[in-house]
């Protein structure tokens, strides 16, 4: 990840943006978990409606 930053943005190395990739990953994972949980909930609801009818 940090290698990618270094190759795409060489000046960033010197000015030194704080290394916040931990928060970035956390953000993507949390968002992914919330959406995945909702999709799972919908799949379960649909399965239960199908089973009943």
């Amino acid at each position, binding site marked *: 990840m940090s290698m990618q930053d270094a190759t795409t943005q060489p000046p960033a190395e010197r000015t030194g*943006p704080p290394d916040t990739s931990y928060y970035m990953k956390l*953000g993507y994972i949390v968002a992914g978990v919330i959406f995945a949980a909702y999709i799972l909930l919908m799949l379960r609801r*649909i399965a239960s409606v199908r089973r*009943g009818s």
Partner: protein
Amino acid sequence: MTSVSAVESRSTTARPLPAVDWLLVLAVLAVGAMAVRAILYTPADAALGAVQRILYIHVPSAILGMYVACTIMAACGGLFLWLKDDRLDRISESAAEVGFVFLTVVLATGAIWGKSSWGTAWAWEPRLTSALFLWFVLLSYLVLRDAIENRDTRARLSAVLGVLALLLVPFIHMTVYLFRGLHPDPVVLQPGKPKMPPEMLITWLFAVGAFALLFFALLRLRYRWATARDARLMLEQA
């Protein structure tokens, strides 16, 4: 017997739930591709670092959860009070629930962003505060629906709440702006001040498109489920 067959014909005219929702699959793939592009192929912000890439989730979710979902909920609620069509009520219900999920993502990513960039997970910042109050409004809308047994009463009362909620949004914005904010101003919607580099802009527009697709795919799925659920309830009551 006649009433049962009438109900059955109604439930079959409502399209049966498909085995695989291709729109949802497409939307999930698009969001996944957006995440790959954002993380691997889009430069990080020079001042904020990698965490800036959270905005590709945060901002589109905020637009869809706050504005699109609430507008659909209120518009269909208002139309329901006029036309008394069950389908409008189901769209309202679906928009509120999907909007609630998107706003949850907005609050979660906003807190992570705040922890990284401002040092605190929750700074009573105007836009985040409006999102929080709107989250509460949607939650109370869903709880209200849950607390009413009768279907017609439920549709009527929640439609009233939905319409009033849309009127509330501008007031919450005005109120929270009485406080000063630390939220970065929207960069994209300022014509003449192109602050965002083109690579970031393309990723950002891609993100908006992908999340819009996810929103409408979930909305459609939720609506279809509500139709199937109501049809089944009618069948059980008949």
